[in-house]
């Protein structure tokens, strides 16, 4: 009886950790819930229910005696790392065909969670190149392409520095938007670019919550209403931070510039 309870605790721990990895790295709500239920079923828990939102996971398992066991987990960080989502997804499918022990499952989840991301120099290059591509899509020329690369790379470094000191997403986005607007404005006022907004908006594409906004609508239409509302609110508050940061920076700069 006691052993049984310990076992169920361990199963819930594995299911919660798997769900947490998917949720923290930008997976969909239905994927989190499905994965957790697969894991419970694999370990022989036929009757289980699970509920996930972007900020928390709740799981309940009913054992053979009819007793209900529940575990709740809080989700604090939200980012995008699609490799981890893919890896946990494959893990939950593979253990259905080739059963593993509890220790093995834990070790593999730990391995997935600590898997390395791309190095900073590569993501910085990617951010620069992405910004450059957007400047041309928005109608810029060669000078926009080159300065956009620089601004995007600088912005990426700033983002990772702000992530490192854990400033919080609202203020971090505010500062990044102010930096992007200042960079574009300075380039234009030194006569290096004909207008400020092309490089600024392109660099802002690194920040705008377009994906979050689309995901929010996707959750809402799919019936995950709570998630839809909270993701929508997150997207709106990021958009507000970006707009405020850029507008404040431009206002100060034009005041200084007119003097």
């Amino acid at each position, binding site marked *: 009886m006691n052993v049984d309870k310990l076992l169920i605790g361990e199963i819930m721990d594995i299911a919660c950790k798997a769900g947490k990895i998917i949720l923290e790295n930008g997976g969909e709500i239905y994927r989190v819930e499905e994965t957790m239920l697969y894991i419970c079923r694999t370990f022989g828990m036929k009757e289980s229910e699970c509920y996930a939102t972007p900020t928390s996971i709740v799981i309940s398992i009913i054992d053979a005696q009819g007793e209900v066991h529940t575990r709740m987990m809080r989700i604090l960080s939200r980012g995008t790392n699609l*490799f981890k989502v*893919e890896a946990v997804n494959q893990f939950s499918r593979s253990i259905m065909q080739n059963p593993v022990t509890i220790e093995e499952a834990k070790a593999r989840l730990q391995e997935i969670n600590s898997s390395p991301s791309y190095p900073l120099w590569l993501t910085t290059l990617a951010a620069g190149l992405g910004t450059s591509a957007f400047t041309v899509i928005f109608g810029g020329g060669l000078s926009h392409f080159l300065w956009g690369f620089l601004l995007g790379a600088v912005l990426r470094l700033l983002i990772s520095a702000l992530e490192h000191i854990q400033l919080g997403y609202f203020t971090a986005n505010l500062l990044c938007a102010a930096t992007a607007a200042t960079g574009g404005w300075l380039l234009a006022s030194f006569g290096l670019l004909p207008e400020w907004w092309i490089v600024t*908006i392109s660099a802002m594409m690194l920040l705008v919550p*377009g994906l979050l906004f689309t995901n929010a609508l996707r959750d809402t239409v799919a019936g995950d209403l709570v998630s839809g509302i909270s993701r929508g609110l997150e997207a709106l508050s990021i958009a507000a931070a970006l707009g405020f940061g850029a507008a404040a920076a431009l206002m100060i700069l034009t005041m200084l510039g007119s003097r």
Partner: protein
Amino acid sequence: MIKNFLLSAIATISFGILFNVQKKNLLLAGVNGGLGYLLFSISTVNGFESHVGMFIASLGISVFAEIFARLQKAPASVFLAAALIPLVPGGTLFQFALNLLEGNNELALECGIRTILEAGALAVGIIVVSSLTKVFTRRVLRQKQTGSIPNQ
């Protein structure tokens, strides 16, 4: 047209790296991003409204993402998330916030409505394809009677 295809593919691959997509999936994600923007440009050039173009493009990239997901045995969102970036109305959303703060309420309203329409069109396209694939894979599984779980 070809220039836009290449540029969106480059932007998609860059965002793929930022989203930590695996190396073996990056190129296909980039192709998908390029195709999405190509579909969008073709539709708008032929006189469709921008949100209708978004809908057509999002249908296209969702279908390709599902096909690539089956080929590479990975979740469809690996190919979808970065490919959406050139399409998402980030620029309009930013203009909406900026206009609102500067007091240009009419312009802000116009940008806001455009953002909602375009983002909504993108979401509807994705949802239509993903619900249809779910029905389809369930059918195929039942016919095969294998009982294995689709890798999606």
